[in-house]
C-alpha cells in the first residue's frame, strides 16, 4: 500500500502505527541486548560507547521498559491493529473519527521522539525504572538522569496518555456506533470484543496515570509535596517540605499499571481465537463464554493493582484482598485457555484442510507463552511467596513471558495474517516458519531460565553482582545462557525485518481472502449486505465452500 504520511484512512494509519511500534521495538531490543551483554561482561567497554556506568545501565532498563510497554505493547496490538481492520470487521467503512485517529497517531509519534530525546539531554535518561517511584523520580538531585531526562519522560508519557485516550474514544465510538446492519454483539469477531474491553480500560486508566504525572510534575517544579514525605533528605539537602506519601504514587501508578498488562495481552487473546478458528476450520466453542471471560478479565483487572505493592508497606489485609481478586483473574484466563485447547483438540489439526501457516504457528506460540507465563501468576499473587519473589528475576521472567512474549507473538501473528491487507502481498512462508521456530526457541531459552535466577533470589536492576551479592555465583552460568539466547532471539528477528521489507516489495500477490477466512476484513469491496451470521462459521459443507463468510447474505444462499 502506498504509505502517505498525513492520511486519515484507517489502514494507512494502521501501517503508520505499526511502523512506529517497529521503530520502538527495534530500539528497545537493542537496549536490552546492551543490558544483557553488560550483565555478563560488566567490565568490557562497548563499541561506540566505552564502559557502561551503573547509571547508564539503569537508564537502559528504564528506557527499555518504557519503550516496550508503552510504544510497542500498548500501540501495536490495540490501536495499530484496530485501525487496520476494526472498521472492516464490524462492517463500517472507516473509524468513527478518522481525523481524530490521525491526530492520536501524531501525538504518539511526538511522544516517542520526546522520550528518545531523553538520551541526549545532560546526565542522560531517567534511572528510576518505568514505574519511576518517587521520591527518586520526584527529586532532580536524587540521581543522574532524574533532572532533564525525567522531565522528558514525564512529558512523553503525558503525551502518550493523551494519544491513547483519543484512540480509545475513537475505538469505542466505532465499535458501539458504526456496526453494520445485523452485526449484533453475538456476531462480533473475538478481536472486536477484546478491543472493546481494552479501549474501555485505556479510557479509564490512562486518565489516572495522567493525573499522577501532573502531580509528580508539580512536585518536581512547583514546590508542592504530594509524593515527597516530610524531612526527606537527598544528597545532604532536606527536600521534604510537607507530608507527602510515596504510597499515593504507587496506588495511582499501579491502578494504571496493571490494567495496562491486560491492554497489552487481551487483543492477542482475541486474535488467536480468530486464528485458531480460521486455521483449524472450527467454530469457537462457547463463543459467548469466551467473550464474557474477556470482559471479566478486563473488569477484574481494575481491582487487582495492589498485588504490585505487597511489600511496599501496604496493609497486610489489603494484601489479602488484592490477592483474592488476583487469584480470581486466573479463573477467566483458565476458561480461555481451556477453550482454546479443547477447540484445537476436538477437531485435530493434521490434514483435512487445516494448515499450519505462519500466523497459526505464532498463535500457537502465543498460547504456549500465555500458559507458561500465566501459570506463574498465581504464585506471584500470593503475598507469602511474593514477599520473597518480588522484584527478583522470577517476576521479570513472569511478565516477559505472559506479557512481552505472548504479546509479541500475537503481534507477529497479526502481521503475518493481515499483511495482505497492508500491502496486498503475502510474506514468505518459508522465512516465516524459520522466523517462528528460531524465535520460540530463543524466547524460551531467554526467559525460562530467568525463573531460576529469580528463585535463587537475584534482584532486578542489578548492574553487576558485587559485594555479598556475589553469593549468587551459581547464577553466572545461567546469566551467560540467557544472554546468548537473547542474542539468538534478536538475531532471529532480522529474518522478520527482511521478510517484511522484501514481502512488501516483491511478495506473492495475495488472492482475495487468502486464508479462507470468514471475518469481514477479507470481504470483497462490493459486499455490503447486512450481516446475518456469526463470525466463525467454518466446516459447514456447502457447495464447493466449507465455510460461510460473514458477508455472504442469506439471500445469496438459497
Amino acid at each position, binding site marked *: 500500500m502506498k504509505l502517505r504520511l498525513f492520511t486519515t484512512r484507517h489502514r494507512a494509519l494502521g501501517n503508520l502505527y505499526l511502523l512506529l511500534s517497529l521503530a520502538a521495538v527495534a530500539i528497545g531490543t537493542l537496549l536490552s541486548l546492551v543490558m544483557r551483554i553488560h550483565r555478563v561482561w560488566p567490565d568490557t567497554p562497548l563499541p561506540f560507547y566505552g564502559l557502561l556506568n551503573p547509571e547508564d545501565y539503569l537508564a537502559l532498563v528504564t528506557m527499555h521498559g518504557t519503550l516496550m510497554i508503552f510504544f510497542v505493547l500498548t500501540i501495536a496490538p490495540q490501536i495499530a491493529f484496530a485501525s487496520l481492520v476494526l472498521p472492516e470487521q464490524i462492517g463500517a467503512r472507516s473509524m468513527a473519527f478518522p481525523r481524530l485517529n490521525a491526530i492520536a497517531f501524531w501525538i504518539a509519534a511526538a511522544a516517542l521522539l520526546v522520550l528518545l530525546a531523553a538520551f541526549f539531554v545532560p546526565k542522560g535518561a531517567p534511572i528510576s525504572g518505568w514505574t519511576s517511584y518517587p521520591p527518586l523520580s520526584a527529586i532532580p538531585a536524587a540521581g543522574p538522569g532524574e533532572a532533564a531526562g525525567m522531565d522528558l519522560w514525564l512529558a512523553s508519557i503525558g503525551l502518550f496518555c493523551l494519544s491513547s485516550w483519543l484512540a480509545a474514544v475513537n475505538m469505542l465510538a466505532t465499535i458501539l456506533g458504526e456496526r453494520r446492519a445485523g452485526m449484533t454483539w453475538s456476531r462480533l469477531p473475538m478481536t472486536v470484543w477484546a478491543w472493546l474491553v481494552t479501549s474501555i480500560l485505556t479510557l479509564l486508566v490512562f486518565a489516572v496515570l495522567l493525573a499522577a504525572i501532573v502531580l509528580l510534575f508539580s512536585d518536581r517544579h512547583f514546590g508542592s509535596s504530594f509524593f515527597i514525605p516530610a524531612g526527606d*533528605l537527598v544528597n545532604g539537602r532536606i527536600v521534604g517540605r510537607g507530608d507527602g506519601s510515596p504510597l499515593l504514587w504507587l496506588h495511582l501508578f499501579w491502578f494504571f499499571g496493571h490494567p495496562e498488562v491486560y491492554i497489552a495481552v487481551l487483543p492477542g487473546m482475541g486474535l488467536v481465537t480468530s486464528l485458531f478458528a480460521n486455521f483449524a476450520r472450527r467454530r469457537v466453542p462457547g463463543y459467548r463464554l469466551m467473550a464474557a471471560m474477556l470482559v471479566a478479565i478486563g473488569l477484574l483487572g481494575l481491582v487487582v493493582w495492589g498485588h504490585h505493592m505487597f511489600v511496599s508497606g501496604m496493609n497486610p489485609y489489603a494484601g489479602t484482598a488484592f490477592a483474592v481478586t488476583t487469584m480470581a483473574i486466573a479463573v477467566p484466563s483458565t476458561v480461555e485457555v481451556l477453550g482454546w485447547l479443547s477447540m484445537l483438540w476436538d477437531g485435530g489439526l493434521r490434514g483435512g484442510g*487445516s494448515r499450519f501457516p505462519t500466523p497459526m504457528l505464532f498463535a500457537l506460540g502465543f498460547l504456549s507463552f500465555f500458559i507458561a507465563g500465566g501459570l506463574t501468576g498465581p504464585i506471584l499473587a*500470593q503475598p507469602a511467596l511474593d514477599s520473597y519473589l*518480588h522484584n527478583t528475576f522470577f517476576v521479570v521472567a513472569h511478565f516477559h513471558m505472559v506479557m512481552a512474549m505472548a504479546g509479541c507473538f500475537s503481534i507477529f501473528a497479526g502481521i503475518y495474517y493481515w499483511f495482505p491487507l497492508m500491502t496486498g502481498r503475502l510474506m514468505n512462508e518459508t522465512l516465516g516458519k524459520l522466523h517462528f521456530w528460531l524465535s520460540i526457541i530463543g524466547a524460551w531459552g531467554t526467559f525460562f531460565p530467568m525463573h531460576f535466577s529469580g528463585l535463587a533470589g537475584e534482584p532486578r536492576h542489578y*548492574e553487576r553482582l558485587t559485594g555479598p551479592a556475589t553469593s549468587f555465583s551459581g547464577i553466572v552460568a545461567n546469566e551467560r545462557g540467557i544472554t546468548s539466547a537473547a542474542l539468538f532471539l534478536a538475531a532471529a528477528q532480522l529474518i522478520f525485518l527482511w521478510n517484511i521489507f522484501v514481502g512488501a516489495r516483491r511478495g506473492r500477490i495475495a488472492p482475495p481472502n487468502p486464508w479462507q477466512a470468514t471475518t469481514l476484513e477479507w470481504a470483497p469491496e462490493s459486499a455490503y449486505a447486512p450481516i446475518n451470521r456469526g463470525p466463525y462459521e467454518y466446516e459447514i459443507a456447502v457447495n464447493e465452500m466449507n465455510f460461510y463468510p460473514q458477508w455472504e447474505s442469506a439471500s445469496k444462499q438459497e
Partner: protein
Amino acid sequence: MPLEALCIAQSHLWLPPNGSLHGLAVDRLMRWNLIAICVCCLAAHIWLIAAMLRRRRREQTGSTALRWTLLTALCAMYLWMAVTAQHLWAQSRYAGPSLEAMQVEVVGEQFQWYFRYPGPDAAFGSTRPNLVDATAGNPLGLDSRDARGQDDVVSSVLVLPAGRQVDLRLRSIDVIHGFFVPGMRLKENTVPGLVLHVHFTPATPGTYPILCSQVCGLGHERMQAILSVVSPAEFEAWLAAREHVRTGQRDTTGAPVQ
C-alpha cells in the same frame, strides 16, 4: 519441564539456604506451588502438541464435560493455593511481634544500610534529618539531646542472636529502598515517611547477604549489607563492645566479634 518438576520435588529448588523459622513453611509452599504449575504447564503443552498431531476428524467430539471438569479441578487448585498462602501470610503478618521481640531499626539511605539497636533502655532516640552527617559519625541524625538516644548503637552490619524473634522497624531517609534478605525469606520496602514493621526469627547461625530490591539510584546494586546470625552469647558480647564505644562519636564499622 518434567525434569524441573522432579528436581523441584526433591527440595532446595535453587533457593539459597534458609536460615529463618518461617522460611521452612515458605519453601514448602513454594515447592508445592512450583510442582503444581510445572505439571499444569507440562500437561497443557502435551495437550497442545497432541492436538497438533491428531488427525483431523469430521464429527464434533464435544469435550465440554472434560473442559468443565478440568476447569473445576484448576479452580480447586487456585483455591488451595490462595487458602494456604493466605494462611501463611496471616501467620507471618496479621499478628504483631511478640512482646519480648528484639527491636532493631533498619535505615536505608543512598546507598547504605544502617542498623540501630535501642541499647539497654530499649528505646530509640529521636532523629532529625538536619543532624544527619555520616562523616561526623552520625549517619542517622541522632538527636544528642534526647536521653533515649544516648545508648543507641548504630552499626553497618546486622548482627542478630539466633532463636530470638526480631521486630525490625524499617525507615528510609531519602528514597524507597527494598530490604531483602534472601536467606531469611524476608522482604519489605523501606518507604520514606513511613515506619514499617516486619518481624521474623533467625534460626541458624551464619552470614546472609542483605540486598536492596527496589531500584534506588545509581548505586542500587552496591547497596548491600551482611546479616550475621550468631549465638546469643556472642551477640551479647558484640553488643556490649558496641555500647562501650558509644560515647561521643559512634562506631559505624561494627563487625561481629568472635
